[in-house]
């Protein structure tokens, strides 16, 4: 891989992160009334002015705009993302901790949904119009339209309440208080959230792959492959699917964004102690620095996903090599 391409992409990542930092900074700066005052007044209407001014100073809100901005950017890059009002701990480590739990749900879901969606979508596109394709397409469209929170609640109702196959939430049973960590117990608790998340993003992947496949199948080189006398399965695998996958790679980043937004609902409903649940609590508690931090973390995740896609794509599509030599 060309070093210049790599460098270019990394610069872009940095730029993107600065953009996010700037946006959140501008937002909070131009909000009517700063958030410290806002929060303190929520605690008590009669907070004395000196207290407010003190906190404003601590949070750097009395500095001139540019100075505040630069300090803020530098602080964020160094890992100082402020203090959470509610939890009274630094924001960055707090989010970092919770992040692992969210990843525990997100990563398996991403992998599963990508694989299943891609395979099902390819098959569906290949068998376009047949009963199997129509049936699969209809059910996928059906699930795609269901809101994430609704699917989660229904899942909880049916599988945990009515059928009792899965626990009602949380990440460990009460037994853990006595018997300690049990990996299987955690997996048992994670199962339903992972399944729900997988189902939700699976439909998107499937639909994309199917469309991509349909477009690929209309290409001339598929006819060439047939003219060579190649077996249908070989054409599907080697010629059609490989080309159909290309747009999917660029979509991975979008999938991540959806997963993150969805995780708020999923984790809240399943009481899973990840970033989503943290967001929910932050919302309820009006904890602005924490929400700020969550936003920044979200930006980092998206940037990372984009970067990964940018690294992987040239490996799959030789045509991109040219643009790498810019």
């Amino acid at each position, binding site marked *: 891989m060309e070093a210049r391409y790599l460098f270019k992409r990394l610069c872009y990542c940095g730029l993107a*992160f600065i953009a996010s930092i700037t946006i959140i900074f501008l937002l909070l700066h131009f909000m009517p009334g700063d958030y410290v005052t806002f929060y303190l007044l929520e605690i008590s209407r009669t907070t004395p002015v000196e207290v407010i001014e003190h906190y404003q100073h601590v949070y750097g809100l009395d500095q001139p705009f540019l100075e505040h901005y630069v300090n803020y950017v530098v602080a964020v890059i160094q890992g100082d993302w402020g203090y959470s009002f509610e939890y009274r701990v630094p924001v960055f480590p707090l989010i970092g901790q919770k992040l692992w739990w969210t990843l525990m749900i997100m990563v398996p879901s991403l992998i599963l949904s990508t694989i299943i969606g891609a395979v099902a979508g390819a098959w569906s596109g290949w068998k376009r119009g047949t009963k199997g394709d129509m049936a699969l397409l209809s059910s996928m469209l059906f699930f795609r339209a269901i809101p994430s929170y609704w699917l989660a609640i229904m899942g909880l109702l049916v599988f945990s309440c009515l059928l009792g196959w899965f626990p009602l939430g949380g990440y460990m049973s009460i037994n853990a208080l006595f018997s300690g960590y049990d990996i299987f117990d955690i997996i048992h608790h994670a199962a339903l959230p992972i399944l729900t998340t997988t189902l939700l993003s699976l439909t998107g992947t499937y639909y994309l792959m199917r469309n991509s496949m349909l477009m690929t199948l209309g290409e001339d080189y598929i006819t060439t492959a047939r003219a060579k006398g190649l077996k249908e399965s070989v054409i599907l695998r080697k010629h059609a699917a490989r080309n159909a996958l290309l747009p999917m790679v660029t979509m991975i980043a979008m999938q991540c964004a959806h997963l993150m937004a969805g995780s708020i609902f999923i984790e809240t409903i399943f009481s899973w102690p990840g970033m989503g649940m943290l967001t929910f609590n932050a919302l309820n508690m009006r904890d602005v620095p924490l929400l700020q931090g969550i936003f920044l973390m979200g930006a980092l995740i998206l940037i990372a996903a984009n970067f990964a896609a940018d690294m992987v794509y040239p490996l799959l599509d030789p045509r991109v090599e040219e643009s790498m030599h810019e």
Partner: protein
Amino acid sequence: MSKKNLAMRVSIAIFAIYLLIALFAPLLTPYDPFIIAGGIYEEPSPEHLLGTNDLAQDIFSQLIYGTRATLLLGFTGAILSVSIGTAIGIVSGYYGGRVDEFITRTLDIVMTIPTFPLLLVMMMFFTPGIYVTGILMGLLGSARGVRVIRSQVLSIAQMNFITGVKVMGASDLYVMAKHVLPNLLSLVTVQFVFSAQHFMVMGIGLGFLGLGDSNVIDWGQMIDRAYQNGGVINGLWWWLIPPGMAVTFLSLSLALFGYSMEDEINPRMKLTRI
């Protein structure tokens, strides 16, 4: 009636029902959804078709009224996001060159900004009413549709008739408005439908997270209240389930409509050339 046609008609019919319910809500509801109408947590009965909630409000009336909020959120968001997205897409695709490159690069960066958390921060800070919520959702969601519009515009802009109109001396704005845009109509409509669906679901989701407008009844808040009051554990199904089903069916009908329209436009498998 072909399958495609049937799907389209069914989805339009379902949507029409929702629309009518929203418009004629006051006529359809037995009670004002805000007032105390009976005892609390009452199970469904002839007086209260869906029982009452923790504040003794009639759930059925709330369900009916909630339609308005949902449709409003969806359409406000969709109108805004599709307008902005289309405008940017047209400008980017039509002018090409530097303008296009600039817009595309900016878009690449904008796409890395997590809009949902941003929306949450804004909502939490502003605690906006329902219209502003719709506007915010629309603004933040405009970036999604630009790419698709842009690629379509790119292929239109290269067609000869565009050159022909330009040769006549038409201004760029004229060409974009009168020639490019009409060719995008079906694409834009599909985008609008899917956006509306997306924002409706998101709007209800916001209500579920407690960010809804408390002056307005919306299904999201209903589900949230039901959930917070132990809806799942206590089996308050008449409170918990109807709003969720209502939004799901609405979402389904829009998705169905969008899909049946999209199928008409998408390039089919190429026919063998003669």
